[in-house]
Structure formats: C-alpha cells, structure tokens
C-alpha cells in the first residue's frame, strides 16, 4: 500500500468513527446502559416489504406501543409520532431463526455456560424457556443484524425438551417469550452408523434403532393414555381416585393433543422416510422436520406428508459423493416439491448469519421472494404465531428493521431494529469494541 493510500484509509476510518460517535450521540461506555425506546414511531418514505401484501414503495409504517398500527403508501402521520425518515431504505419484518440455542449457551467450550443439554433420554418436561439468559451477550449481537425473534431449543437425548419462541429483547424470559412452549424437540434415532468411533455392526445398529423406536412409541402411547385418563378425571372427578401427577406425562399432554408441534431433527434419507411413515401413526399430533439435509432426495414424499421443514444452507454436503451445491439447493428443491420451508441456523453466537443462509437458498433455486418468506412468515405459520409475527401488517407485533439495501447482501447494513415496538439501541459487544478500538489512540510499546 502506498503512503497516500494509508493516510486516506486512516482519514476515512477516522471520519467514519467520528460519524458513528455523532450518530449515537454518546460515548461507548454510556451505550451499555442505553435503553430501548417504546412509544409512537412513523417510519416514512420507505420501500416496505410486507411479505404478505407485496412491496409498498414510498410507504409508511406506524408503530404504537408494541404493535404495528398502520401500513401503506398514503398514511396520515399524527404529530406525536416520532418520524424516522427511511428515504432510499427498506423495511422488512424482523427475521425469524426457527432453530437455535440462543440464550441457552453462552460460550461453547465453557461447560458451566451451557444450558441446552439436560441429562436423560426423555425430557418433555424440561423447558428452554426456563433457562433463557436475557443478558446473553449473543442476543444484542444477533438482533442488530435484523434477527428479531428465534426458536431456542434443548438438544440432548431422545425427547430433548420444549423449545421456546422468544423475542430478542427483554429483561426476563417472561418478557421475551412469544410462545413459552413452542414445540417439543425430538432427536430421531438414526439408523445410520455414527462415524469411525461407532464400532457397532450393521445388525447392532439396526437392533438399537428398533429398540430406540420402541421406547419412543411406548413413551408416546403412555402419554396418550395419561392424557385420556386425566381428561376423564378432569371432566368428571366424582367417584374417581385422583391419579398421581407425572410431570413428564403432564408435559406430553399438549403434544399428544397436537397443540404444539414435535420438532423432529432428522437428516438421512432413510430416516426421513421412516419419520414420514411414523408420523402417520399419530394423526392427532403436529410435526415439523428440522435439519433435513437429505431432504432434496425425498422432497416429494415430504411434501405429500405435508411436513414443514426447518433448514439451513451453510454446511458441507452430507455425503462425499454429493454434488457441491446440495446444501444451498435443499430449501429450493423442497419448496419446488411443495414443502413449506423455514430458515433455522442451529446456531448460537452466529444466529446473526440467518439472513445469509436465506441468501444462499435464494441464490440456489428458492428465489428472493420465497427466501424472504422462509425467514419470516413461514416459520410464524409453522409455529402458529402468524397473527403476531412474520409480516408487516396492521395489528401485528412490531418486529421489524430498516436496511439500506437487500438484507441478504452482507455488503448492506441494518440501520434500525424494532422488537415488540421497542426501538432497539444499535449496540452490541462487537459494535462497542469497534468504537473503542478503531482509532485506539493509546501509545504503542
């Protein structure tokens, strides 16, 4: 690099830094305690991607309290609304990552900060909602990239526990939860050998798979029985001895009644086919597939079974002989077959990359429009919250963001984020460190 270039780079960065400081209007230290603002906001002159009602050019979005109160191109803006001029900018519904462990894990390698894996095989009664840490440093890092709400779920054992749907803003799990119990996470017992460490013979693998399935089926039929028994008792307790309380069985009741879905993590083709057949045994229950990396191989079967899929794109192909594009194409191929797909990164600290998972899906067959749905409204529908989330519509919860361009493009930026009507300070550890160290100014030694 030539000297003049270095000076220019330095000047540019200094200017940017000054602008940033001006923009936030206070020192980095002060921002740690900066509060979100809630009230009345009017986002004006924006290109509004409503997702459910097309794109509104030169549009306005009114936010009052926690809700979106009006959306359109010809909106009367009452005087008391704080106006945010979004000329040349775009408004999108907040992005929804439908499968994470955000809030449950802080630092992967530090065991005491890991709350996503409880001991035991059948834990329908453990709840992610209980252990969400609202102060997780990962949360602000995620939301400033436009991801405003996520499914966070336990991961270990056969029935890992209840997933929760949370907004990425709040001071307690209660204040964050959209659906405290959003689903029950099931790790499908794979019929495929683990890896090199798995020294079981093919026969042993098959036998264990059968046994695992039997345990699962037994557990569910016990739960069905328990639910029926309890319902009978609740309907008419007269002359009946009160059954003992069973927390696990109690937790299964909303599942066997189909009130919340079972989220089944499954990847291998044969396992997916088994899952499809298995779900037919439980017509009253709801099911969602997650992972589904071989999904493109059996997309028609999944579509026919009407099972929605939570998918990502940024992983290496499942099999050495797979075409290099398969992970990127999987959402597109599933969608083309008629499967409803939603983006789920499976991540923690980098859930902020959810838009890029969608971007790759868009680029490799899903298309931008469907990719946008996959990261907004589809997941809201799958988890039964499309009346609250997933689009920019009157009456919905104000989870949305303003971007200076297509948010799937990393070269663009998110400038404002609203979560449940709260205008979120655009602050995170990453931004604070940037502000502090871009032009550090201390002596070198």
């Amino acid at each position, binding site marked *: 690099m030539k000297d003049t270039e*270095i000076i220019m*780079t*330095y000047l*540019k*960065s200094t200017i*940017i830094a000054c602008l940033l400081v001006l923009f936030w209007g206070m020192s980095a230290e002060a921002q740690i305690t900066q509060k979100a603002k809630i009230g009345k906001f009017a986002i004006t002159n924006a290109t509004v991607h409503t997702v459910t009602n097309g794109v509104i050019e030169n549009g306005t979005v009114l936010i009052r309290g926690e809700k979106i109160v009006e959306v359109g191109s010809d909106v009367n803006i009452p005087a008391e609304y704080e106006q945010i001029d979004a000329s040349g900018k775009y408004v999108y519904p907040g992005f929804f990552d439908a499968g994470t462990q955000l809030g449950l894990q*802080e*630092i*992967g*390698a*530090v*065991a005491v900060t*890991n709350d996503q894996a409880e001991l035991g095989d059948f834990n329908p009664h453990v709840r992610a909602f209980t252990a969400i840490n609202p102060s997780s*440093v*990962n949360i602000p890092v995620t939301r400033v990239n436009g991801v405003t709400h996520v499914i966070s779920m336990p991961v270990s054992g056969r029935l890992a526990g209840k997933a929760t749907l949370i907004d990425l803003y709040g001071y307690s799990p209660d204040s964050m939860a959209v659906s405290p119990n959003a689903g029950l996470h099931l790790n499908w017992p794979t019929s*495929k*050998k*683990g*890896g*090199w*460490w798995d*020294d079981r013979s093919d026969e042993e693998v098959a036998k264990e798979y059968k046994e695992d399935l039997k345990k699962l089926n037994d557990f569910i039929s016990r739960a069905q029985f328990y639910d029926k028994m309890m319902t009978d008792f609740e309907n008419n307790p007269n002359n009946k001895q009160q059954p003992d309380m069973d927390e696990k069985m109690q937790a299964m009741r909303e599942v066997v009644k189909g009130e919340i879905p079972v989220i089944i993590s499954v990847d291998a*083709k*044969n396992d997916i086919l088994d899952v499809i057949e298995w779900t037919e045994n439980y017509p009253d229950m709801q099911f969602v597939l997650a992972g589904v990396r071989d999904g493109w191989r059996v997309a028609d079967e999944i579509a026919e079974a009407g099972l929605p899929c939570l998918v990502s794109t*940024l992983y*290496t192909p*499942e*099999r*050495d*002989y*797979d*075409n*290099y*594009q398969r992970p990127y194409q999987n959402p597109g191929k599933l969608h083309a077959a008629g499967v409803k797909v939603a983006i789920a990164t499976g991540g*923690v*600290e*980098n859930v*902020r990359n959810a838009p*890029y998972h969608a*971007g*790759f899906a*868009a*680029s490799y067959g899903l298309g931008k429009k469907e990719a946008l749905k996959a990261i907004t409204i589809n997941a809201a529908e799958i988890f039964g919250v499309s009346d609250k989330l997933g689009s920019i519509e009157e009456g919905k919860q104000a989870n949305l963001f303003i971007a200076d361009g297509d948010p*799937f*493009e*990393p*070269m*663009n*930026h998110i400038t404002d984020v609203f979560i449940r009507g709260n205008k979120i300070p655009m602050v995170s*550890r*990453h*931004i604070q*460190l*940037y502000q502090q*160290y*871009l*032009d*550090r100014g*201390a002596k*070198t030694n």
Partner: protein
Amino acid sequence: MKKLFLLILTFCFSLTGFAQEKGSVLIKDGTLITIANGNMSNTDLLIEDGLITEIGEDISAPRGVETVDASGKYVMPGIIDAHSHIAGVDINEWTNPVTAEVSMEESINPNDINIYWALAGGVTSIHLMHGSANVIGGQNETLKLRYGSGMNEMRFEGAPRTIKFALGENPTRVHGQGFDVQPRTRMGVEQVIRDHFDASIDYQRNRQEYLDAKQAYEDGTRSTPPVPVAKNERLEVLVDILEGEVLVHTHSYRADEITMLMRVFNDYGIEDYTFQHANEAFKVAPELKKNGAYTSVFADWWAYKFEVYYSTAYNASILNANGVKNSINSDSGELIRHLNHEASKAVHYGNTSKQDALKMITINPAAQLGIDEKVGTLEVGKHGDVAIWDGHPLSIYSKTLKTYVDGKKYFDRAEDADDMRLKVDAEQDFEEASGRWYNENGRHSETCLRGAEIRFSKNGMKLQGN
C-alpha cells in the same frame, strides 16, 4: 476387450501424470478485478502455459488456445485461504508441546473431496496448516488445488516454508491440563518457546563444532576424534526459523499473548510472521503495524471458547484501517466454500472498501504465505490462477463459473457432475458410503483442533475439554 478396459482404467487412475500440465486460455470481455490496478471492464486476459501473458483489449487467441467469453462476468484472481485443514491426512501431532520436525508436506491427502468443493468456491491455493495443539506445531504446506493430481503435484512449488505456533487455550489444555506437561498457562507458553529457541541456538553451535572437528580429524589436523552430535530434526527447524527461512503463523486469540510473542520474536530477531485467528488483534493493531506483523482472521467466528468471547466481527475492518495487512481465512471445510462471502462481511462490519475486502482473500494472504510475487493479482507474469464469476464476487448471489489453476481448468459449473470423488472404497455400497470421509476415518476434521480434542481410550472415544 479386457485389455481395452484396463487401458481406460489405467488412464483414469493415472491422472497424476498429467497433473502439473499447465494450460492456456483466453478469457474475453470480462470485468477484471485485478486487485493490483482496480477493476478493468471489457478486458481480455490471456494465460499461456500457466502464466498470465497479456491483459488488454482485443487480444486474439494464439493458435490452439481456447477462448472463453466472459462478457457480463467478473474475472478475479483465485482465492487464497491462509488457514486450511482440508486435503490433510493427519492435522495434529499433538503428543508433544513442540513438534517442529513434522510437516504437513507429508500429510497431504490429494483425494479429499473438499478440494473440489473449494474450487467450486473460486479457491485456487490453500495454506494446509498443522493443528493448534502444540506451542510449536508442525510445518505447514502451501498447496495449489490441482484436484486429480498426486500428493506431490499438489504442492505450490517455490512457496516458502512456514510453521504453525499456537498460544493460549489449545496448547495449555492439551498438554498442561491433559497430560500434566508444561505449559498449563500462558506464562508457560512463553517459556516453552524461549527454552526451545535457546536449545536450538546451543544445538546449532554444538553440531557445527562437531562437524568441523570431524572434518579436521579426517583431514588429519586434529588428533582425537570428536564425540558425534546427531542431527536433530526438531532443532534444525527451529534454527531455520531463527535464520528467517521459515515464516511463522501463530494460532492466537488474546491481545496479551499476541504482544508476548512479538516481544519474544523481537528478542530473537524473527521478522516475518502472521497471527492466525487473532480475535483480539484489533486491540493491538498499532503494535502489530509497528512490528510489521500480519493477521489472518475469521470474518465473524467468536464465543465458541472463552478466549474468543471478547471479540468483534469488526476485527478485519479495524486492522485494515490501522494499516495491518490482514486476510480472511476459513479454517473450515465449509467456510472455504464461500470465502468471497466471508470477505464481504468486512464490508458489512466496518465498511471496509470492496477492493480492500477482496485483497483480504487474494493478495494479502498471498503476501502472508510469501507467494505474492506469483499469485494474488491479475498481472502479466503471474500464475494463471483465476476464477470467473457470474456477478461481483462479494455479492451473495454470485457463483463461481470456472476455476483455473496454472491456466488449467479444474472446475466448470457447466460441466459439474454428481460424485466428484477421486478415490472410492470398492467395498462400500451407496448407503454404506453415505457419510463423510472424515467421519468415517476419524483422523481429523476440517477444523483446527479436532485431532487434539478427540482422544482414544480403552473405552473408546473421549472428548477432551468440554
């Protein structure tokens, strides 16, 4: 008929013989991202016999040279990944805190499907690194992704030797916590390095004295024979580092350990070095700049362990703004598939210019590997390592169309097929082979510390650490 089949087979399996064949191609009317001289629209690029021989307008193809139309397309230098573990057999000789004697040159797996997948992301060269279990790990090897060629043909001829150092949690966890062998702390890490440099200086003197005495004895100018000092494979490499023949690439995260190593290197006169990962390099950017140190970082990885908790995805932008030569690497079989996308995050986090972001995956890593005279830009005289993209490479919607190494095409999206494996296990049927080689063989995965994390015990696999 049988013979014919044999002949075909022999041909199929002896790609080695053709491997280093260099190619010629004329790429016409593309937008050239030269890196060296900005972007040039509607410009032709001629590669002859592996080298870029002409850049300009209206170049006509020499006889027999294929012409590729790149109008509306972008042509950029092949991406260089300064930190990779694909194409390796073993990654970590994790049994000793210092293993300078081992070399990834001897751990190349040319049949790794990840090589093809990386080519499909426009990557042409990688720095195949030893793992990070040891304070002074093994030597690394710079490769060109000549997929289909033999182990030795994969090597980037003329690339300088490099070696892996590692600071912080990995070596202290593996050796200190795992084996009760120093170092268990960052204090110990420093002393392991100093002790070994000192030992290598002593060794060099003693060995030379022995060789001189031996010569003198044989010449008759010395009456008593000397006591032999055996050549020491490990200390020889450390001597080479002190003599500046080996570039040091150090796995590091925290600012304190980065400044520690710069102090040590200043004491021993070591000059050419790169900090790998360096999640906290942003804190000491002025010091790095002052020492002429390079950095090679993740675009956004953090929080997977304690020493990367205090991180920022703005690291690359801060380093760049402070004049530190920085690259963005993958350290992963996944990220290497879209390093262009990783580079674009430097624009997202901190508004690094597009040109500078592209330098972080081309000329900057080339400089860090000492191959910037040969690759990393589109300039006459450089190697014909280029990729053609259907849009601007920093856009998430852009795809690699063709990838050339030495002017020879190794990836073509139009001709891409299923199952690009080079090596097949005859005994595995379709479903049996439905895993990944790494999982099946368990020697390592595409990332840094797997070889050290997973330990065998009599009772099977044991995860070290968490």
